[in-house]
């Protein structure tokens, strides 16, 4: 199969207006990926699926990623070919920001395998996929408001102090429970002031 650079050049020749760049993977896996601009993404996906040299008929994995440092949310598609038994070709789509411009084109019309996985990304990251046939929350309940897989999600403060804390648990315990009284100072009261324990 052609390399990611060759594939990018071929795609640029076929879709002259599109912005396509190669995201290099510096790790030993060397699975490089193609970063697409959202608007022609679905046409490119159809091309990748139907091109006789590629035949990427199988979308294996759809991953949402939150990049607060880049200021965007990202979806990664891992494509393989069942007909020609090669792969992966990795596509990345990025939103404009993390707050209001979080719309990306859905690739479910191209590969139905994306249906539940894109719903999951919508649920946990809040990326809105246009033309998805059934975009609802999939894992959390419908009334839920947050997107819990984002890096800045604050979970409900609802578990008690553990005797052997480590790292993040200790930080939560500090927020949650008062320090033990130092000798001579009045008792600060029971720990029932935490939100989880209110009736």
């Amino acid at each position, binding site marked *: 199969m052609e390399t990611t650079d060759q594939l990018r050049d071929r795609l640029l020749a076929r879709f002259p207006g599109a912005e396509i760049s190669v995201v290099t993977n*510096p*790790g030993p*896996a060397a699975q490089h990926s193609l970063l697409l601009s959202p608007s022609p993404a679905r046409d490119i996906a*159809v091309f990748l699926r139907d091109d006789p040299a590629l035949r990427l008929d199988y*979308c294996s994995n759809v991953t949402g990623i939150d990049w607060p440092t880049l200021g965007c949310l990202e979806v990664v598609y891992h494509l393989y070919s069942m007909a020609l038994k090669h792969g992966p070709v990795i596509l990345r789509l990025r939103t404009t920001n993390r707050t209001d411009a979080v719309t990306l084109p859905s690739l479910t019309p191209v*590969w139905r395998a994306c249906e*539940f996985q894109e719903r999951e990304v919508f649920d946990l990251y809040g990326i809105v996929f246009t033309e998805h046939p059934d975009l609802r929350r999939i894992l959390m309940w419908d009334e839920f408001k947050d997107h819990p897989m984002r890096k800045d999600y604050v979970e409900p403060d609802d578990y008690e102090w553990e005797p052997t804390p480590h790292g*993040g648990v200790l930080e939560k315990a500090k927020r949650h429970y008062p320090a033990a009284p130092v000798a001579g100072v009045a008792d600060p009261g029971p720990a029932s002031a935490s939100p989880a324990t209110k009736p």
Partner: protein
Amino acid sequence: MIASGLQTTGAHVREVHDDFHGDLLEVSMGPHHPSTHGVFRMQVTLDGETIVKLKPVFGYLHRNHEKLGENTSYLGSMPYTDRLDYLNSMTNNWAYALAVEKLAGQPVPERAEYLRIILAELTRLLNHTCLAGFLLQDSGASGTPLMYAFREREKILDLFESLSGSRMMCNFQRFGGCRTDASPEWLAAAKKLTDGYGAFLDEYERLITGNEILMARTQGVGVLKPDLAISAGITGPMLRATGVDYDLRKVDAYGFYSRFAFRVPLGDHGDTYDRYMIRVLEMRESIEILQQAFRDLPAGPIMDPKAKLRGFRPKTGEAYGRIEGPKGEIGFYLISDGTPNPYRYRVRPPSLINLTVLEDLCLGHTVADAVIILGSIDIVLGEVDR
């Protein structure tokens, strides 16, 4: 329409042609239902007893696996992978170890690769045996087939327990090898079990496979077409039952599978009966693989001496590693930012994605058929919801 196999209208309501019909009935099956294999829920719309619409509802076992993976070290996620698909902890371990080894460029010694193959094929036997038992349970043969299946399962679990210390949650693979070596006694016991497994399958098939009721209940029920299966990302025995030849043990030849001679069974019709038969045939191939592995198992270390367990920090980068689990392609997508914890830890769950076509398979069938179609898809909720 550019879609392949997708009905963009959303509602899959069948037209009702006869004049004599009543209202449609909505039934919520689950999350507490004896036949949904855990806390899975189907919202079924019925016309009489015929399914005209079916919407799966997930999330009742969403245990935040991926979020926990981001907050835990690489090795710390290994026990969590046991609890993904809790029937097949060994293959989950392997898939995760493979992804991390790809991420870090970590080689694995030969003996460890053989041990992994042995354990993965034993897991496949275990999973497919349990599936056959549960499928028969779902189709009304209450008790007996499941008793047979669990009798064999206990034997395999005894092997796992003596090797790893735990029956179900083995936590056995490490990045660059395995945790403990198999003793000659263990290998002898495993070989004895493998040699006897064919006889069990013969017995089980005599009891089940030719059974007239099973054939009537499963043949022609829930037919999956190959092009829909490919488009919907179906993997594993369910894909191969439709006749598509795609087995990662052959395609990727991960581990040392290229050294083994085995056949990939393919189905013809893609119906529930084919999905059952594929599993039985795969078990027979697994026995072949196991016997070759016991014959060729080399001596040597089981852990790469340069492998780092404590303070493991792969370089910045990402990797997607996948193996052929008993339920389909189980993959892990990891992004490292150079810290001890992965920046992103994603599980590609075969059970969830195989459920994409559940509605297509069930439309036009009765509720009782939906139960065995679901049974033949072979889901485990720990993996569906993660």
